[in-house]
């Protein structure tokens, strides 16, 4: 019962960054539980080529369920395949990313397997044979340590928290035979609307640039976009406070805090955000927090590592220039 199955999420055949975190964590947990790490990828044709490299993150076996009809996420079919893979092995735990797909898929798998599940976990260990997790509750205002008393333990891992560790190992790729009948699916993804070209999601980015009421007008978001672009739009994403989302300035998908997303980037910029308790809850587990606010008494400075007191309309362009200069200088 000591093996650990890692759900290897990919989109359009491209393995997602968080998958490396999940496979690495599964490998570490498997060695605590005295078993092997296996990865499972579900998707369209030609998937074996793109997921084969997961062996390098600790997967002794990489199982691939590929079919043209599985190219997009199909909850019912994907859940059935995960359950089939779990039942074919002897797993003590099944790990998913706490991504949109993982959050949707893992509870179905847990219900089908009749085992409990822990969501959005930030620590997982298998010491003593039992899976014990630590996870935020009340949007990060507290943490719960939970022992999972059934096997396999189904767990989703918060992105950006667990290290992705490359190892000098290679896993064997095994094709899983699947037969799928899309005509029987009761839920179907019929369209995908991209938020904006290449934009990174706030929950996955390693750098988040968030704006609040102090930005004064949605048009001023160009200043935050400039800073994000200087930091690198491949690693940095825009975030927003609840006040500006409620005002309709920014989409809810960018909201950080309670009733939005809880984020854990390496670097978090809070610009023109005073720091309501709900917002602090959602970002306080960030690595380094920078606050820019004209009010020196704003609560945001209470959690920030570095602060600048001043007019953000002057500070942001200067900051963007400094970051650009730094990047240009290598």
């Amino acid at each position, binding site marked *: 019962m000591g093996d650990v199955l890692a759900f290897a999420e990919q989109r359009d055949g491209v393995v997602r960054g968080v998958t490396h975190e999940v496979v690495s964590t599964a490998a570490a947990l498997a060695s605590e539980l005295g078993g092997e790490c296996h990865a499972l990828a579900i998707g369209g044709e030609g998937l074996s080529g793109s997921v084969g490299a997961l062996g390098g993150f600790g997967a002794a076996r990489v199982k691939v369920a590929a079919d043209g009809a599985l190219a997009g*996420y199909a*909850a019912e079919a994907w*859940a059935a395949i995960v359950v089939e893979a779990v039942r074919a092995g002897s797993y003590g735990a099944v790990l998913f990313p706490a991504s*949109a797909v993982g*959050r*949707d898929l*893992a*509870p*179905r798998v*847990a*219900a*089908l397997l*009749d*085992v*409990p*599940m822990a*969501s959005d976990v930030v620590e997982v260990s298998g010491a003593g044979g039992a899976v*014990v997790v630590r996870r*935020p509750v*009340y*949007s990060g*205002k*507290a*943490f*719960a*340590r939970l022992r*999972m008393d059934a096997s396999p333990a189904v767990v989703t891992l918060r992105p950006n928290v667990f290290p992705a560790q490359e190892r000098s190992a290679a896993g064997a790729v095994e094709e899983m035979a699947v037969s799928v009948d899309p005509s029987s*699916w*009761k*839920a*179907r*993804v*019929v*369209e*995908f609307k*991209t*938020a904006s070209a290449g*934009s990174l*999601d706030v929950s996955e980015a390693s750098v988040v640039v968030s704006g609040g009421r102090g930005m004064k007008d949605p048009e001023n978001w160009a200043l935050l976009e400039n800073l994000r672009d200087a930091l690198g739009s491949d690693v940095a994403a825009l975030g927003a406070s609840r006040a500006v989302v409620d005002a309709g300035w920014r989409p*809810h998908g960018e909201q950080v805090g309670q*009733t939005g997303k809880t984020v854990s980037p*390496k*670097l978090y910029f809070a610009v023109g955000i005073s720091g309501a*308790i709900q917002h602090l809850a959602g970002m306080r587990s960030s690595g*380094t927090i*920078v606050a820019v606010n004209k009010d*020196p008494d704003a609560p945001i400075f209470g959690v920030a*590592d*570095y*602060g*600048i*007191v*001043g007019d953000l309309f*002057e*500070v942001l*362009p*200067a900051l963007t*220039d*400094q970051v650009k200069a*730094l990047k240009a200088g290598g």
Partner: protein
Amino acid sequence: MNITVCIKRTPDTETRIRIAEGGDSIDSGGVKYIVSPYDEFAVEAALRLREAAGDGTVTLVTLGDAAAAEQLRSGLAMGADKAVLLEGESGFDGLATARALATELEGHDAPLILLGVKAADDDAQQVGPMLATLMGRPCVTAVSDFELNGDTARCQREVEGGTEVVEVDLPAVITITKGAFEPRYASLKGIMAAKRKPLEQKAAEVPAARMTLEALELPPARPEGRIVGEGAEAAAELVRALREEAKVL
């Protein structure tokens, strides 16, 4: 069409969390309780559907202690028709909660079951898809808007980097996130009417939880930060500190 909405009593999101003695619960002294905000979106969605259809019933269900009747009354005041309080423990094991709800909901003639995407206390985002799976129904999660076309719901679902459009055949379970369904305020008339609406109380059939809470802890305090300076001139020092001290640039 009849719609059942599952709601949960949670602390107000403005609550400062304190851990109670014993370390396995929060100190509820002075805590104001509300309907979990995501569940309010679900109630609003149900009310709008009923109003658009001109017929049907919106039924609220909650699993919790007797005090959760207060949150059911809040939903009735918004406009729901009746409510069921399943008295029982709602802990961290989402599957146990989903089973208790499924036992009740199997008896409801409701082609549509709505829930908030997650509860504002455990943040688990499990119960909706688990409930659907136990009931053999399809489920669409994290839906910010949807419309009904006959027996199909067309849902906008938030995912990383965009929005998925998902069509689902009823009967179905849909979990709602922030988006189109800004909840209405209860009117005084609604609050008065809620007192006379049926609220059934019965014992829940909750299976034993299979997750043990070992401890509840507050997040570690963050080390005190420093103000690097004022105005645009401070930008250079900030970037230097981020690069040389924090090593994040």
